[in-house]
């Protein structure tokens, strides 16, 4: 088992004819992901790495009724339309890779998705991988291996860093989810903690947070409130970030006196979450946690 994506995930690529879309379609196919179709308005009839391209999501779905998941590489000014199209056409999971989407747009489609029972991962994220089953994202597949740790992260490369160490230690991952670096994201840390809680394969969860907002604080509060049964290890990036500066991600900013790393670390520790001071320490804490149960 895994969460969000698995061997029954049938993928549509929106923006498949673009540079990124085409490159990652190939990489996903090589990983073994079942990519059935792509969409770029006006480019229907072409094919990209053997994947047929359609003009609309509706057309793709009518030809490939198995499609249940979409990954979006559409540029920011058009991404929100692509999300609505995916939702309206019945996709269950939408992975939104696109960066720089205005927050007023994402606020709306994330709300719409919630009302329609659709899960959005992102925006501004590396996607989801359930090693050995499916990769719906842009992460390097080889740093992941099938195993028992669930990863939730607001970052991309930092996830690979930690995943690689978990792989080397022989623990592997059940599913790794990059929820995105924007101020407002579809799936939150709590959403993912809930899914990993039900997942038999997942024995421990790693949360990779960063400065900005209060998602880590809320995750900590959730862990405490529900007496989360599985061990959780966290890492928070940005301990040395100055207030008021956006650190690369739109969401990574300490503003109005809130969102600094110390507050998040304190909240985690108060909820019994083990917090690593370096990415490498995550594995050590995971091993300790799994040993002590």
């Amino acid at each position, binding site marked *: 088992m895994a969460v969000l994506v698995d061997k029954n995930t049938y993928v549509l690529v929106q923006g498949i004819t673009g540079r990124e879309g085409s490159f990652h379609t190939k990489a996903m196919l090589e990983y073994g992901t079942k990519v059935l179709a792509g969409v770029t308005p006006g480019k229907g009839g072409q094919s990209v790495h053997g994947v047929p391209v359609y003009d609309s999501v509706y057309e793709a779905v009518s030809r490939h009724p198995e499609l249940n998941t979409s990954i979006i590489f559409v540029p920011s000014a058009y991404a929100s339309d692509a999300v609505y199209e995916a939702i309206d056409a019945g996709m269950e999971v939408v992975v939104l890779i696109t960066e720089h989407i205005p*927050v*007023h747009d994402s606020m709306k489609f994330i709300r719409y998705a919630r009302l329609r029972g659709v899960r959005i991962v992102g925006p501004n994220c590396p996607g989801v991988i359930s090693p050995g089953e499916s990769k719906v994202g842009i992460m390097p597949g080889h740093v992941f291996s099938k195993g028992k740790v669930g990863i939730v992260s607001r970052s991309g490369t930092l996830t690979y860093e930690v995943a690689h160490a978990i792989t080397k230690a022989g623990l592997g991952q059940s599913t790794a989810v990059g929820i995105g670096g924007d101020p407002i994201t579809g799936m939150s840390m709590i959403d993912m903690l809930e899914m990993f809680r039900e997942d038999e394969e997942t024995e421990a969860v790693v949360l990779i947070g960063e400065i900005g907002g209060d998602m880590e604080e809320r995750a900590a509060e959730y862990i405490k409130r529900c007496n989360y049964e599985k061990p959780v290890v966290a890492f928070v990036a940005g301990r040395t970030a100055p207030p008021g500066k956006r650190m690369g991600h739109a969401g990574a900013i300490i503003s109005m006196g809130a969102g600094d790393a110390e507050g998040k670390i304190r909240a985690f520790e108060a909820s019994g979450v083990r917090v690593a001071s370096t990415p490498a320490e995550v594995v050590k804490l995971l091993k300790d946690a799994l040993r002590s149960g």
Partner: protein
Amino acid sequence: MKLYEYEAKQLLSSYGIPVPEFGLAKTPEEAREIASRLGGKVVLKAQVLVAGRGKAGGIKFAESPQEAYEVAKGLLGMEIKGEKVNSLLVSKAVDIQRELYLSIVVDRSVGAASILASPEGGIDIEELAAKYPEKIVKVYVDPLVGLKAHHVRRVVGSMALSEEQKKALHDITLNLYRMFVELDCELAEINPLAVDRDGNLVPVDAKVIIDDNALFRRKEFAERASAELSEFEAEAKKHGFSYVELDGDIGIIGNGAGLTMATMDVVKLYGGRPANFLDIGGGARADIVEKAASLLLMHPKVKVLFVNVLGGITRCDEVAKGLVNALTTYGKGKRLVVRLMGTNEDEGKRILNGAGISAFDSMEDAAKMAVELARVM
């Protein structure tokens, strides 16, 4: 991007929210002229983006045009928390009887706009929340539904106001929300929203932050945003890098915001001081890496450049090529520490070895080396 107070007030005014008449002065002469046009007592306010200008002496009153001239002379050119004062907002002084608070903000926790209103204003919202948490009314507005009459009733009802004032606050709230949505605001704040001697509601100070990601459709602000950057920031932005200036001596380059931040943190953990944060993003080719590395090697404060790359879509051989090129041209008197892992790692390490650089496998070991080098240099 943050707007100056005068810009925020121009926007309020264009959205039908009356603000006290004002002018913008860049010289003491202009301040005198505006003061004489306005007549009576005026307030001169330093136009800076940092918070806390009042306590730093950036807001002064003047009884006459001549006094306004003298006050402006002192204010213009002064520094407030490192920011130079280039212009002053000169406005009629408001005879404040009461101070209210009103703002609309993108609430990250709920993913919706949130209206914050309080009958106590004039101090920061953080301070307000600490001092009078029970007096702050928070009204969430569903982004799909928009502002409804009941939202506004709650806002208006939260303050003890006369019927006429209620009507005025009702209009202000509607207009502020319209502006918040139409201009892609992250924050639209009126604080204080004063009640003057005649009982009118008057925005005395205003803050607006526009979503950087929406600047492509807010061209009027986009130009300002790029004009504000320092030389290094502008150069970094031109190449699509995320760049933040810090005050240490170890230049940091990483791929991906989280990894770059973590790199910075680890350097600090081992006793070093990062000079900056530079994220080259995903999939950077040799020429892009060369530009990033050159930029930091040219930076006068950078003694050691620490590059931490975890190759996914970014290829280590491209990174290595870019670094070697930058080092050849700009590396004199500087040291380079590299951590490379991932796609084409062996080829990347071979290229670096050819230039006499040995790359680390672990970011922690690499960080220790960078800190040690910066210490002895």
